[in-house]
C-alpha cells in the first residue's frame, strides 16, 4: 500500500506536466497546433504502454503497435453507424454488421478484446526469452497486419474503414496519457515490477531468488497491451478513419525511437523521448516540404522524417545506449539533486570545524 501511495505521489509531477501542456494549448494554440498536441498525447499513451513491457522485462517489442491497431479497428467496427456499415462491410462475420455500441461501452469492449488477443499471444511469449521473444513480437506485428489486409469482410482490407464518430478531444487524449503514466509508474514501483526489473538485469539470479519470471512477464504484457489499446482508440476516434498502414512499421519505429531516446527503463524517459521525437519529427516534416526561410526557398526533402527517426535510434545506440534518463525517474533525479545540495551545505560547516580543531 505504501508503495502504491508513493508511486501515486511520484506520478503527480508528470501528470502536472500533461495538465500544463493542455492548458497552454487550450489558451494559446491554433487549430493545427491542437492537432499536433493531440497526436503527441496519443503517442505518449502508446509509448508509455510500450515502456510498461520493454522497460520492466528488458525485452524489445516490435509487436505493440498491433495492439494499437486491434483497439482502433475494434472501436471502429463497434461505433460506425449501421447504415454506413451496410455499405462498408455488409458481410462482416459474427453479425457485426448489425452491432452498434455507443462510444463508452465500445471503448471498454475494444480494450477487453485487445487484452484477450494479447493473452492468447502471451501464453506463447512468456516461455521465450531474449531474441526468440523479440522475433515473436515482430511476427505479431506482421500477422496482425496481414489479417487486417486479408480479412476483407471484417476489416475492408487495404481500403480504409471510415465513418467512426469523431468524439475524442485533446482533453480525452490528455486524460488517457495521465492514466497511462499512473498505471506505468504504479506497475514499475510494485513488488512484481521490481522483481521483473531484477529479472531483466540477471535472469538466473532472479530465478534463484524465487522471482516468478513467466508470470510477471505475462502480467506486463497484458497491462501494456491494454494501455496501447487506449492509444489506438484515441487514434480511431480522432481521425474517424482506420486503415492497416497506420498500424505498421512507420508507427512502430516512431514509438520505438521515442522510448529508446528517452530511456526505455524509465517512465519519465518515455515522456521526455516522446516530447523530443515529436518536436523533431514536426520540424523534419516542415523541412521536408521545402519551407521558405529568410526568403530562401529550401528544396523539398522527401523521407526526411523517416531519416530523422532512424538517426535518433542510431545516435542513441551509439552515444547513450540507456537513453536520456537511463534507469532514473524524475523523482530520482530530484532526490539526488537534493542530496547533493544537502551535502554541500553540511560540508561547509564540518570543514570549518575540522580546520579549527587542527
Amino acid at each position: 500500500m505504501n508503495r502504491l501511495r508513493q508511486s501515486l505521489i511520484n506520478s503527480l509531477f508528470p501528470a502536472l506536466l500533461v495538465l500544463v501542456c493542455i492548458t497552454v494549448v487550450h489558451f494559446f494554440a491554433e487549430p493545427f497546433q491542437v492537432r499536433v498536441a493531440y497526436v503527441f498525447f496519443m503517442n505518449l499513451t502508446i509509448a508509455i504502454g510500450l515502456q510498461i513491457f520493454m522497460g520492466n522485462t528488458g525485452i524489445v517489442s516490435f509487436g505493440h503497435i498491433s495492439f494499437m491497431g486491434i483497439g482502433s479497428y475494434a472501436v471502429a467496427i463497434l461505433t460506425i453507424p449501421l447504415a454506413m456499415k451496410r455499405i462498408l462491410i455488409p458481410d462482416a462475420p459474427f453479425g457485426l454488421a448489425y452491432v452498434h455500441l455507443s462510444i463508452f461501452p465500445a471503448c471498454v469492449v475494444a480494450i477487453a478484446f485487445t487484452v484477450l488477443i494479447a493473452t492468447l499471444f502471451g501464453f506463447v511469449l512468456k516461455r521465450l526469452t531474449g531474441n526468440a521473444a523479440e522475433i515473436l513480437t515482430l511476427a505479431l506485428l506482421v500477422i496482425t497486419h496481414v489479417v487486417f489486409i486479408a480479412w476483407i469482410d471484417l476489416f475492408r482490407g487495404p481500403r480504409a474503414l471510415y465513418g467512426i464518430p469523431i468524439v475524442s478531444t485533446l482533453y480525452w487524449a490528455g486524460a488517457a496519457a495521465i492514466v497511462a503514466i499512473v498505471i506505468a509508474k504504479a506497475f514499475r514501483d510494485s513488488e512484481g515490477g521490481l522483481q521483473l526489473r531484477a529479472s531483466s538485469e540477471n535472469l538466473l539470479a532472479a530465478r534463484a531468488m524465487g522471482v516468478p519470471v513467466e508470470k510477471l512477464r505475462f502480467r506486463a504484457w497484458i497491462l501494456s497491451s491494454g494501455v496501447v489499446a487506449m492509444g489506438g482508440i484515441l487514434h480511431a476516434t480522432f481521425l474517424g478513419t482506420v486503415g492497416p498502414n497506420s498500424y505498421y512499421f512507420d508507427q512502430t519505429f516512431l514509438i520505438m525511437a521515442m522510448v529508446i531516446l528517452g530511456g526505455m527503463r524509465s517512465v519519465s524517459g518515455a515522456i521526455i523521448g516522446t516530447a523530443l521525437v515529436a518536436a523533431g519529427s514536426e520540424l523534419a516534416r516542415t523541412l521536408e516540404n521545402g519551407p521558405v526561410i529568410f526568403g530562401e526557398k529550401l528544396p523539398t526533402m522527401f523521407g526526411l522524417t523517416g531519416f530523422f527517426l532512424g538517426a535518433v535510434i542510431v545516435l542513441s545506440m551509439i552515444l547513450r545506449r540507456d537513453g536520456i534518463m537511463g534507469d532514473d525517474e524524475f523523482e530520482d533525479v530530484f532526490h539526488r539533486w537534493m542530496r547533493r545540495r544537502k551535502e554541500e551545505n553540511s560540508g561547509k560547516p564540518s570543514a570549518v570545524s575540522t580546520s579549527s580543531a587542527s
Partner: protein
Amino acid sequence: MNALADLAERPTDWAGPASVSSKAEAGDESEAIVIEGLSKKFGGVYAVQNVSLHCRVGEVVGLIGPNGAGKTTLMNLISGVLTPDSGTVHLSGKQLSGGSPESCARGGIARTFQNIRLFKRLTVRQNIEVAQVTSKNNRDGRKVHDIDEILSLLDLHSMAELKAGTLPYGHQRRVEIARALALSPHVVLLDEPAAGMNEQESKVLIGSVQAIRDRFGCGVIVIDHDLRFIMEVSERIYVMHLGEVIVSGLPHDVRHDERVIEVYLGRKASK
C-alpha cells in the same frame, strides 16, 4: 597457496579417516538440508558423483576441494539451476520436489554465486527486496526478515541506496549474502564468499557468517579456497575431489588427513 603449505607442514597426529559425525536422517527437522546420492554427468564424465552430505539447523558446514572438484556444480544441483541425474534433497525434513531455481528458492534454499550476479542497476536495498518479496508471498509460516536487520548484520547500511553495480567486489559479495538471507531460507549456500576479499574483510565475514547462523536460524554451507577462512568458520568440513566427497569431518581432522594433503599438494607431497 601459502596457507596450504603451512597446513601441510604441521605435525600430523592423524588418527584414522575422519568420519561423518552422525548419519543424517532425511526426515529429521533439525537437519536444514540432507542430500543423498546426488550425481550429475556432463558428456559422460561425472562432475558430481554420488554425493551425500547434510547440514543441521544452526550449523556452518565447509566444502572444499581443488579447482574443478564439482563444488559449484553440487551447489547448482541443490539450488535447482541444474537437474541431477539421480539423488534426493530433503529440506527441513521434507523432500524437495520440482527442480526449478524458483521453487527451490521458495522452498528455502538461498544461494550466492561464485561469479557475482547482482541486479546491478538496482540499489542494494532493492536487491534485497527482490528476495524479500518472495519470502512475503510464501506464507508458509517462515518469518519474513527485516531488511534493515539484514543490512546492519552485513554492515551495508551506509550503502543501502547505492546501485549495487557501483560497489567494490568485496561489498558486492556481502550484498549477495544479504539478498540470499532475505529469502528466509532453511539453508544458505555461499559459493566462495571470501574471494577477492582482503584478510581484514574475510575476518569480518567470519563473524557475519556466524551471526547469520545464530540470528536467522538456518544452516550455512560455505565453499572457499581460503583454507584458513574455511577452517575457522566451519564446524564440519567436506572435501570433494573429482566429483566425489573423499573426506568429511571436523576441521582439525580434515586438516591432517593424508588424502586431503595429497589432493591439495599433489603426489609429490605424499611420497
